[in-house]
Every structure is written in structure tokens, then in C-alpha cells.
């Protein structure tokens, strides 16, 4: 296939703020170059790999990532501290334990009704469902046929984007109940999260100090 498509695909992805699907990329290419242009999903995917390896060869600070069944430009994680330094948006939007728990249940059991969700969690979940709907991480996907026709909840594309997942099947598999009894890797996982949290805190602190510094300067 022609190398020219690498640049076309790159341009299309670059100009989009939402994950752009392979189907949309092909639609644009065929729309301009004619319906008989030979290009498949697999070829698009191969192009992405080629573009990314060019970036890697040239030590470029961003990559095209596969997210929410589409492609999107994202900066590399090494630069997170610097990027986050200027934008406070990232540090604000951490989800609560209740939100994560609810999302986990919805993600694996979707579509799911509120009573089903509440029977697993053992607590009333009205408020948390409202919050997740507001954040657009879940959506109402219809009504169940059971008594009272309760609303059915499911995760959204925004959910995939939020957790940097390409598709739902990329979610880690829930362990079988027997496995849950052996807890070692679970502990390891938790330590990893803790490490990330500590780093985040350190970053926030640096940022906080910096702001203080700024204020002092102004005072002078």
C-alpha cells in the first residue's frame, strides 16, 4: 500500500479531538480518492504502527494510541508531570471508591438495572448513578422487561476513553472465586496503585509550592 496514506491518516487523527475510528478514516479516504480505493481496517492499523515507529525513531514526545475503538494523539507518559504542571484539569477528576466500584459492576454486568447493582453493592446507589450519568461514563440503554421495567445502565465511549481502553474486552478479567482466595498479585497491584498515588501527591505538592512562590512574588 502507498505510504501516502500514512500521512493522510496522521492528518485526520491529528485534526480530531475525539477518538476517530478506522471506519471513519476509510470513509474519508474513499470519499476523496474514490470508492474503489483499496484500504482495509487491518491496513489502517498497520499504518498506525508505521507512523508510531517513525515517531519512536525520532524520539517524538507523542504517539497515536488505540482508545475507545478509535485512534487519538496522546503525549507519552514520561511527560505527564510537565504537561500536568500547566493544566490542573487532570488532577481534579479522580473518581471515588464508590464510583469505581459501581463502574466495575456496570462494566462487567452491563446492561444492568439499579436493583441488580444495589444487591451486589449492598447499598443504595441513586446518588452515585446520577454522578456517573452526569460525567457521561454511563448511559441509560433502555428498560428491562422485568417487573416495573427498570432502566438499564451501560458504560459509554467516554468510559473507555477515561480508562484508556480500546474496547470493553480489554478490561481485565474478573478472577474466579477460587482465585480470589489467593491474594498475592492483588496486593502487588495495590502497591502499584499506591506508588502512582504517591507520585501524584508529590506532583501536586510541587505545584502547590510553585503557586505559593508565585503569590509571594506578586506580594513583593
Amino acid at each position, binding site marked *: 500500500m502507498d505510504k501516502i496514506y500514512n500521512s493522510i491518516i496522521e492528518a485526520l487523527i*491529528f485534526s*480530531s*479531538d475525539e477518538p476517530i475510528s478506522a471506519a471513519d478514516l476509510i470513509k474519508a479516504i474513499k470519499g476523496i480518492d474514490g470508492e474503489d480505493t483499496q484500504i482495509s481496517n487491518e491496513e489502517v492499523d498497520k499504518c498506525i504502527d508505521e507512523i508510531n515507529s517513525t515517531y519512536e525513531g525520532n524520539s517524538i514526545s507523542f504517539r497515536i*494510541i488505540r482508545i475507545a475503538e478509535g485512534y*487519538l*494523539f*496522546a*503525549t507519552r*507518559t514520561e*511527560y*505527564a508531570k510537565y*504537561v*500536568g504542571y500547566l*493544566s490542573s484539569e*487532570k*488532577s481534579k477528576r*479522580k*473518581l471515588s*471508591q*464508590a464510583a*469505581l*466500584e459501581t*463502574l*466495575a*459492576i456496570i*462494566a*462487567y454486568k452491563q446492561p444492568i438495572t439499579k436493583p441488580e447493582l444495589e*444487591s*451486589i*453493592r*449492598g*447499598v*443504595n446507589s441513586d446518588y452515585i448513578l446520577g454522578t456517573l*450519568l452526569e460525567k457521561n461514563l454511563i*448511559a*441509560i440503554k433502555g428498560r428491562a422487561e422485568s417487573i416495573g421495567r427498570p432502566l438499564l445502565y451501560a458504560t459509554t465511549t467516554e468510559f473507555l476513553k*477515561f*480508562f*484508556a*481502553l480500546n474496547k470493553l474486552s480489554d*478490561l*481485565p478479567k*474478573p*478472577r474466579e*472465586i477460587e482465585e*480470589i*482466595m489467593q491474594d498475592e498479585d*492483588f496486593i502487588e*497491584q*495495590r502497591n*502499584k*496503585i499506591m506508588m*502512582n*498515588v504517591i507520585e*501524584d501527591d508529590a506532583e501536586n505538592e510541587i505545584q502547590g509550592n510553585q503557586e505559593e512562590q508565585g503569590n509571594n512574588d506578586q506580594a513583593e
Partner: protein
Amino acid sequence: MYKIKLDHFEGPLDLLLFFIKRDELDIYDIPISKITKEFLDYVKIIQMLDLETAGDFILMASTLMHIKVRMLLPRELDEKGEEIDPRAELIAALLEYKRYKEMSEELAFLESDQRRLSFRSNFSKDVKVSIPDYEILLKNVTLYDLAKAFKKAIDNVKPEVVHEIRKINISVDEMVQYILKKLEEFSELHIMSLIDGMKEKIRIVITFIALLEMVKMQQIGIKESPDFNEFIIYKTEHGQNL
């Protein structure tokens, strides 16, 4: 006696899992009476702090007590004739919850990774005019969004204030006649009994004016009731002569 640290628990199942983990209990063989006691101690504290969430905990406490009672009774048998462990349902619920609690930690891990990525952003709005098409018009719009927009629109509409004015035809003279008629039946009347059952303010006002008018004409007299809480009207001799 255990000291209970008031961690933040997501719910009763979370709290039970905490006890099981802390005391290294076998989830398949939970010492119900011990755990019920601890659970109740915690519920006592949480009840003082937050009645709203306490409800879910109280429900679990009663479930635990129910299980505890069933443990003392002879076991029920299932179709195969095997004994049913009264704890079975609780154990299943705990394991299921634990499964998703673990997944929530996985999600936290993913979230914290994702936070290290920055996407291209701050795009200005696309000015390209597209041909109206249902697919595009309803892009990323769910029923919930529509319902939300509708509610917002409805909430913004100022309610139209309507005052209904109804004319009540009642004159002081009519009221005087009415009171006199009443006084014919009963020689003494509590004022409150006259007003009782009157829905419109204007009737009550007219009643008072009529009473004052009648006192002035010396048709009736007003005296305090024996318990001083009310006034009693009675017919005067002058009134009787009328």
C-alpha cells in the same frame, strides 16, 4: 473488646470483608455470632454519625441476626437432602462483592495510568455545516440527555400566576338574620361554633361585623366563657322583643 477504627466503608459488605480480612477468617466458615457482635458495635457508631447510610447497615445487621438464629435451629434440607448452610447466601454475596471490589482497584490502576496521558484538546468548534441527517443530529445524544434538557427547559419556564377571584355574596344583614335564627335554637352560642366550618375569610369577617353590629343594636350580649377561652353570645331582652 476490639477497638474499631472508623475507616470509610462503602457499605455493609465492605465492612464484613474488612472484618474477615483483618481477623484472617475463613470466608466459607464465618463465625456468625462473633462477626454479628462486631458488626452491631460498628452500627451503633455509624448510627450516631450518619443515619442515612446507617439504614443499609441495619438491614445487614438484621440479616446477620437472622442467620445467627437459623444456625441454632436444625438445618433445613435442600432437594437432594443435603443440609443448607444458613450462611450460604451471605457468602455468595460477599464473594461477588469482593470480585467487583477487586475490579474497582484494577480500574483505579487504569485511571491512574490514563491520567498520565494527555490528548489533543482545546479544539475550536467545527464550523463545517453538515447536511441534516438523523445520525448526525442525534450524535452522542441519549434519551437521558433529552430528558435532562427537557427538565431544564421546564424548570426555566416561570410559572404563570393565576389568581382566581370568586365573589361571595354575603351581606352583614343576612348574617345578622342567620345569627338570630341560630340564637332561636340555642339560647347561648360559642363564637367559635359560628365560625366553624367557614371556608372563606370574608365570611368570618362578615360574621364579626354582624356580631359587633348586633351588640351595638343591643340585640345580643357577649360574655366570657367559664374557662375564659372563648366568648359566648346570648340574646338580650331587647333582641327578643325584635
